[in-house]
Structures are given as structure tokens and as C-alpha cells.
């Protein structure tokens, strides 16, 4: 009973972690950008979905949240990331730290704006389905099952896009060898636009689902970014399957700790695992060196 409970709860949380991290790793893989405004965009999606749901209903709200994350990810790219990448006065070996600092500042601005407009209190998106389902004696909110299913649907759609479409294959190629791709006549700029668009959708879905499952507040921004960053490094920077694997490792480790040790120690074993793995195998589970 307890085992099954851990299995079910860990599954949903991990799926959510995975979805959040996949977009993050994709951008790094394709354009080498670690977007530290990640958590802020996720919380924006959840907050907008909450705010709109009253007038537009649960589905309207969810759509609005998705759209806001989509827009915001483009603003992040055009207003912050691209100017830094193109700046002549920033030496190329320092682009990384400037992108990190720039997106960090941008994330703080979004976070403060959310706190100003919607308070720091967490908001919960109206769940698309209410009620509970009993699985083998474990009372599970139906919304939790839906969350896991939607996460996997989004991940599945992404896999199809990458493996079955021409644009997706270009994306994959860009993450391996961007120069080669330009030689083949692809415009790298368009590949970047595509990856930020995909990122916007993924992070929007993740944000709305997070809002419906656990609730989200502007205070969570830092934790969400740090957790995506950790998962992505653990799985191997730029590797989508690696990120999913890492998300499940961390998700289950946290759930196990919360159930078997103490909920207040929840994060600690995962952090230690992270340090150990990065130390012993810096490229992560499935990363390339």
C-alpha cells in the first residue's frame, strides 16, 4: 500500500519535473543557453491561468497561461538572449556568464512583477478534472493522473516532432554541429526561433499543470529554476532522454525521502546525489563530453 502510494505520487511529480526540464535542456543543446528565467516563465503561466480562469473557465485559463509563456519565451529571446549573443563588446568566451546574469535579472524582474500584480501567495489553477480515483486502494486525485498523462503526451509530441519532421531533424543536427547545419543551407536563426517556440509551449504546459497540481507562487521561481538546472545537469546537458531519466531519479528519491524519512528533509538526498554524480561523472547520465 505504501509502496504503491510512493510509486503513484513519485510518478506524477517526476513527470512534471521532466516536462519542465526538457525545454530547458533543449535550448541548451541547440543554442548553448542556460535560461535562468525558466522558473519565472513557469510561474507566469500558472498565475495567468489562475487569473483568467474566473472569466474564461478552466480551459480558457489554461490556454491563456500557455499563450503567456509562449510570448514571454520569445520576449526573453529577443530582448535578453539575442542581444547578448550578438553584442560585439562581449567576448565570445564570456557570452555564457552574460546570458546567465542577464536571464537571471530578467527572471527577477518577472518574479517581482508577478508578486506586485498577484501577491506572493500561491495560486492554484482550477483543475481540469476534479474528484479522486482509487488505484489499488490508493486514493489518487484524478487531476494527478491527468497531469502525468498530459506531461507524457507533451513529451511524446516533442519526440515525434524531433524524429519525424524535417524541422525537428534540423534541430537535432543543430545540437550536434551547428556549423555543419549552416553549410547545408539551414538558417541557424530559424532553428533558434523554432527551439524557443517549442520551449515556450513546453514550459507553458508545465507551468499550468504545476499550478493545477501543487499551486505556484512567485516565491517558487528560484527553486523551480534550480531544480530544472539540477535535473538537466544530472541527466547530461542537452540530452532529452537523460533529463527524463534524471527527473525520475530525483522525483522518486524525493518522494521516498518524504515518505520514509521526513518531509522536511525531502530535498537533501537529491542534492547529495547530484554532487556525487557530477563529481564522479561530470557529463551526467547520458551526456556527451
Amino acid at each position: 500500500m505504501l509502496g504503491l502510494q510512493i510509486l503513484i505520487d513519485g510518478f506524477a511529480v517526476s513527470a512534471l519535473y521532466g516536462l519542465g526540464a526538457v525545454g530547458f535542456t533543449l535550448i541548451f543543446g541547440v543554442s548553448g543557453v542556460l535560461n535562468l528565467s525558466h522558473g519565472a516563465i513557469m510561474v507566469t503561466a500558472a498565475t495567468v491561468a489562475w487569473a483568467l480562469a474566473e472569466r474564461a473557465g478552466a480551459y480558457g485559463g489554461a490556454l491563456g497561461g500557455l499563450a503567456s509563456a509562449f510570448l514571454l519565451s520569445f520576449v526573453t529571446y529577443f530582448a535578453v538572449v539575442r542581444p547578448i549573443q550578438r553584442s560585439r563588446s562581449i567576448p565570445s568566451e564570456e557570452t555564457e556568464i552574460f546570458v546567465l546574469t542577464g536571464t537571471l535579472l530578467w527572471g527577477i524582474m518577472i518574479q517581482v512583477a508577478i508578486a506586485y500584480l498577484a501577491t506572493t501567495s500561491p495560486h492554484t489553477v482550477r483543475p481540469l478534472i476534479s474528484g479522486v480515483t482509487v488505484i489499488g486502494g490508493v486514493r489518487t486525485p484524478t487531476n494527478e493522473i491527468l497531469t502525468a498523462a498530459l506531461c507524457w503526451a507533451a513529451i511524446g509530441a516533442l519526440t515525434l516532432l524531433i524524429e519525424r519532421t524535417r524541422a525537428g531533424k534540423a534541430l537535432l543536427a543543430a545540437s550536434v554541429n551547428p556549423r555543419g547545419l549552416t553549410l547545408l543551407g539551414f538558417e541557424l536563426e530559424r532553428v533558434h526561433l523554432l527551439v524557443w517556440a517549442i520551449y515556450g509551449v513546453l514550459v507553458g504546459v508545465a507551468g499550468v499543470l504545476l499550478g493545477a497540481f501543487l499551486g505556484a507562487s512567485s516565491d517558487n521561481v528560484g527553486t523551480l529554476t534550480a531544480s530544472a538546472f539540477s535535473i538537466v545537469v544530472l541527466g547530461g546537458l542537452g540530452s532529452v532522454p537523460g533529463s527524463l531519466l534524471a527527473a525520475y531519479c530525483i522525483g522518486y528519491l524525493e518522494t521516498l525521502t518524504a515518505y520514509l524519512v521526513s518531509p522536511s528533509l525531502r530535498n537533501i538526498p537529491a542534492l547529495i546525489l547530484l554532487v556525487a554524480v557530477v563529481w564522479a561523472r561530470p557529463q551526467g547520465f547520458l551526456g556527451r563530453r
Partner: protein
Amino acid sequence: MGSLLRSRLFWGSLAGLALAAAFPLVGGPYTIGVLIPAFYFAVFAMSWDLLFGFAGEVNFGPTFLIGLGAYGAGIVDARYGLGVPLSVAFGTALAVAGGVALALPALRLSGPYFGLVTLVAVLLLQQMVTVFADVSGGEIGLSLPDVLSIDDATNYYFALGFMALSGAALFALSRSPAGLILQACGQDPVEAQALGFNVAKHKLAAFVVSAFFSGLAGALLVFYYGTASPGTFIDIAVGVQIIIAAVLGGRRTIVGAVLGAVFLVVAGEVLRPLGQMSTFAVSAVALAVILLAPAGFLGTLLFRRGAA
């Protein structure tokens, strides 16, 4: 040319210090109270710049070292009543020990991996403070029996003097032969290694120096406030402010970090009537500087004058 720049920087710094030293004659007690923590904050930012600007390592965890110094000093004073000097020495030693413990594994890594390990160190320290709340005071914070001084002027000149000495030491180090090797290690580790320099040893030394000054400043700041709380010394947000201050002031300049730190603290204070939006405004200004003048305050200043 190089020496001209250096002397310009030297005279500029001296003039700045003289201005700061004369400031209490015109400034009210409130403005002085704002500047005191800003000076300690400037030492945090300079220590960070040594590690980033010269050793080329992005340390996301300056507050790990600061927190060790602050809590180390605070806990021994609160529990054993060691008094200020001994407690500060203990906190600093703890920060250096923690710095070595962190650097040994972390320096095997580079780029985002190094950054992540330092970030995790902060998160772990923060968790420890919460878990061992009976010793550390937890979220509530730790109240100390001793403070440096209750006199504002004493606190002000002490902080200013401490900042000036730390700045001079860090700056001298960065311009010394060892500092130049360090810079080479940061920019091209492979070549530095090929030239026969022990990259790891130099980076470790940089880490230790950075830990020493961060820990010392953290321990002293604890005795200025008379309290230690995770939100003031350990929280990631504090580390973020330090990084922003260093980048804003001009990386690889050490002295620039002082400008960045004082700017951040003073701007936050001037904009306080904006309420919640003050953080927004400060972040927006910092972002604009990064986008438009990536060399930072001092970098831009020196570059313009140097070119003219």
C-alpha cells in the same frame, strides 16, 4: 599606458576613499547606516570577482563561504561567548576550511558543472541551518550577545577601513605574478598547463583567498547586525546580488565591484518608496547596463579614458 591606467585607477580609488571618509561630516545617521553594510557587501563582490574575473570560475555560491563565516562566528559567540575577535577568527577559519572542501571536488569541474556544485553547496548549507535549528536559530535567526559597536561612526570607519584593506590586498594579488598566472589559467587552462603552471594549485589558492575575505566580511557583518539569518547571509538571492554587483561594476577589475555593490545598495534604498517595484527597477537598470555597457561601470570608464 598600462601603468598610466593603473595610476589613474590608483588615484581614483584614493579620491573615492577620501570622499567616503569625509562623508560622515555631511551625511546623516541614516545614510551612514545604509553605507555600512554596503561596504561589507563590496568585499563579498570583490572576493567573487577574484574567483570569476581571474580564475575564470563562475561561483554561484558566494553565500556558502559568507554563510559559513557568518554562522561560524555567530554560533560560537552565542553558545560559548567567545567574544568578537575570537569568534571572527573562528568563522573565517571555518569559511576557509569550507572553501577548500568545496574547491577540491569542484575544481575538477568547469563551466556550468562547477557553477552547479557551488549552487548546491548553498542549498545544502541553507537546509542544514533549518534542520539544526536548535544550534543555528533556524529561519528565525540567531541573536548575538556582542556587537562591534553601537556607535555609527565607529562602525562606518571600521567597515570603510576593512573594505579598503581587503580591496588593496585583493587588487595587489590580482596584479601580482601569481595573479597573472591565475588569469592565464582562467582564460586558457590548457596552454597554462603546457607552460608548466600548476592550474589546479593556483585555482585552489584563489578559492582560499576568496573564502578568506568572504568569510571574514561575513563574520564582521554578523557582528554589525547583531543577528544572523539565512535571508541575510545564505539565501541564493544574496548571492545573485553579489554576482550582479561584480558584473555591474566591471568584471576583472576588483575595484569595480565596490562601485557595483554601493550602487546596488544605495539604489535599493533610494527607490525604497517605490515599494515592491524597487527590486524591479534595480534589476532593470542592471540588465540595461549588461546589455548596453557589458564592461561595467569601471570597465567602461577605463576603456573610454584609455582610448582617448
